[in-house]
């Protein structure tokens, strides 16, 4: 019981977020008479929020370093426009255009990173400038007009679904299979981790609790894939998102570079005196942000089927809010990828749910603002309490 309590205490923020997300989902499920969790709407939810979630992952790492990136919305728009120029106007093949677009993102990130990491210009100012510069360049590239349509294969990134080789008619069998494979994978990794911990005589959670946890997570995974399977199956974008979450969780949790990012945000001077190349780490974080902003821009362009001058407006604010709601600290050094994703989902579900029940757009904004304030306020409050 004691271990459970400490487990809960140590992860109160994480669990709190999951509980908050679940309650918001249940609330809107009731308010919308069950529309929220209909297969079609869940698919919509994923597709509508994917580009923000991609940004939120990169933004989280920027925020861990204690900085901010205000330019990502403009950069996403710019890369979307650039890709439209390549694919629509110049008819460059899809693969080459994709690589070129991500490369442009990396260069933009390097541009910001150079000013921030090496010339020590405050990130707020550098990326505010970037926000203006790349918004302007978007308009220049597009000459003020939308550019489309894209080739079918490109649109598929955002709007397509994984193919079903089993041809199961009403139900998308491959999606179900993936759910099962995923569950098996999860069980094996949990058991392996436990075994390694027991070998070193570390404390582990009680067996009963572990089983309950595994059962709960497996049910959620399979229920989720089942619901998707009853519509058109797993959207391509969900595969991409899951991959990104897995990769970035691994980087932040398990790798040396991940540690260096947290250390840099926690105390730059101490990190530097511990032999961490703080400038290079900061630079790389912005390059990474640039690539993810480019990816986000591509996904958004694919969804709209055109590069438009108005793309990406206020994306940066949603991404920043997602990271903060997900438990990142404004002073740096704290935050998780999963947290940022949950934060993004909280915002996404609220957007979607409020639209479904017909809350006016003006009130949606007010409510989202209050949620951000309360989430971070709760965070600060629990921290000050645990500190005393």
């Amino acid at each position: 019981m004691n271990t459970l309590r400490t487990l809960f205490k140590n992860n109160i923020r994480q669990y709190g977020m999951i509980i908050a997300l679940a309650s918001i989902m249940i609330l809107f499920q009731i308010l919308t008479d069950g529309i929220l969790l209909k297969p079609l709407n869940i698919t919509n939810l994923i597709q509508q929020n994917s580009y923000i979630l991609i940004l939120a992952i990169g933004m989280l790492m920027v925020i861990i370093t204690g900085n901010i990136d205000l330019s990502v919305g403009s950069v996403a728009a710019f890369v979307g426009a650039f890709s439209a120029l390549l694919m629509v106007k110049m008819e460059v093949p899809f693969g080459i255009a994709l690589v070129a677009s991500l490369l442009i993102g990396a260069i933009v990130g390097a541009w910001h990173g150079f000013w921030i990491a090496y010339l020590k210009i405050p990130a707020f100012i550098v990326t505010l400038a970037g926000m203006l510069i790349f918004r302007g360049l978007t308009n220049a590239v597009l000459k003020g007009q939308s550019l489309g349509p894209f080739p079918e294969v490109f649109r598929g990134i955002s709007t397509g679904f994984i193919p079903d080789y089993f041809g199961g008619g009403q139900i998308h069998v491959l999606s179900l299979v993936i759910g099962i494979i995923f569950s098996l994978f999860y069980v094996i990794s949990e058991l392996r981790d436990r075994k390694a911990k027991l070998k070193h005589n570390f404390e582990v959670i009680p067996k009963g609790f572990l089983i309950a946890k595994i059962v709960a997570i497996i049910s959620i995974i399979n229920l989720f894939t089942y619901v998707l399977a009853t519509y058109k199956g797993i959207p391509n974008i969900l595969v991409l998102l899951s991959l990104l979450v897995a990769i970035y969780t691994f980087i932040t949790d398990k790798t040396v570079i991940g540690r260096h990012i947290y250390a840099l945000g926690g105390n730059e001077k101490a990190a530097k005196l511990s032999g961490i190349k703080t400038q290079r780490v900061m630079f790389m974080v912005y390059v990474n942000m640039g690539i993810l902003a480019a990816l986000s821009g591509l996904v958004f362009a694919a969804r709209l089927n055109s590069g438009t001058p108005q793309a990406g407006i206020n994306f940066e604010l949603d991404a920043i809010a997602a990271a903060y709601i997900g438990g990142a600290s404004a002073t740096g050094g704290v935050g998780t990828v999963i947290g940022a994703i949950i934060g993004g989902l909280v915002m996404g579900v609220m957007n979607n749910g409020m639209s479904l029940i017909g809350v006016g757009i003006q009130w949606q904004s007010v409510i989202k603002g209050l949620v951000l304030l309360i989430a971070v306020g709760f965070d600060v409050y629990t921290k000050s309490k645990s500190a005393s």
Partner: protein
Amino acid sequence: MSEYILEMQSINKVFPGVKALDNVNLKVKEGEIHALVGENGAGKSTLMKVLSGVYPHGTYTGDILFKGEVCKFKDIKQSENLGIVIIHQELALIPYLSIAENIFLGNEHGKNGIIDWNTTITHTASLLKKVGLREAPNTLITNIGVGKQQLVEIAKALSKKVKLLILDEPTSALNEEDSDNLLNLLLEFKKEGIASILISHKLNEVSKVADSITVLRDGKTIETLDMKKDQITEDRIIKGMVGRELVNRFPKREPNIGDVTFEVKDWNVYHHLHKDRKIIDNINLNIKKGEIVGIAGLMGSGRTELAMSIFGKSYGAKISGRLYKDGKEIHLNTVDKAIKHGLAYVTEDRKNYGLILIDNIKRNITLANLDKVSDNLVVNENQEVLDAEEYRKKMNIKASGILQKTVNLSGGNQQKVVLSKWVYSEPDILILDEPTRGIDVGAKYEIYTIINQLAAEGKSILFISSELPEILGMCDRIYVMSEGKITGELSREEATQEKIMKYVINLQRGVE
């Protein structure tokens, strides 16, 4: 009315774990210059903070009598209203405001929140004339030098109708000419009946201007010397400052010293901002295997700057000189390289430069050598837990576990975490910068034991400290630093506190 303008009687002030002031008495006569001397940490600044109300009435015991009346200050404002003004070592001026604005900050001439600039400027001009500063009242603080800034502080004090002026190390950042000006100004004020308390390490200045001297040591009043009555020499003052007995405060050690492992030759470093100011002046030193070498000197003598400039050029500009390890020249341009060459630097400022306070013990210990617990840049967390646990036991870090955040540890345990981090990096040469600052006596002993153990394992240790007893108790050989130079080298046998102090102070007097 008594002859004393200020009497502080039986002042006691306790911080968690430390008795900072123990029954301290201080009496300052009307219109005299009273010097307050003592080693770093003797309690001088704490006493002045009690006097000025930084530590409000109730947080200390004892009485403060100003002009014979008992005072119970709740904040600085109240003490200032009576004319007690303190000028801190670190100047409290706002760089991008003008001299006039700074002088009357919080005390503005004007009505209903609207400033009367004409009165402000004329009043400032007259104050500046009084302190002998020829600058326009509109000049921004950032555009004048430190010496002039000091004068602005004094002008600010005058604007508050000062009766008792307290100066905390006023000349530590000044050159000789500016220092002389300042001291002459104090003598001027004396004629006008303003009493001053002068806190200073520079005993030559003290003997020049002070009428009486109170010596503090370890939070106690040792003596008050009357400069007029007795012939007080600097040696006499030094004796009062350091004269304490050493009994078993340091663990025993049988030094086993080998060949020279690390050498610094012709090392010069300039200030990182003012690139024409030399901070480290042609330093040569060496350390042998298994040896503990001390660097004594006052704060600000350049010890930290020396250590950090060696450690991957973490401080300074225009660094020149050569470094040798085991006879071979090495180039340490980054911290990363310094660590790879087997150097470690334990900072004097563990909170700002040593620890990631929001991270746990485990993550802090492995930070400087993550490669040791990683395969292909992936951290093996289980191994990390085992390693961190090993160090927690070895260093006797008192915590709920290795997952406890370092921000919640006591100073001594934080220091042990920083030490663990650097021992974990497997260095050959450890530079320890004030490793026992702000730590209670028990933890100090533990840290000394760890240091001795490291030396016994054959590591070379450079031990920087302001506490002379500690230097004498721990080191096999001692370099004395003053104003960026090494002014003396003493073996364990010949070293005494008086000798070290002489090396420290001789240079400041300009006699080598």
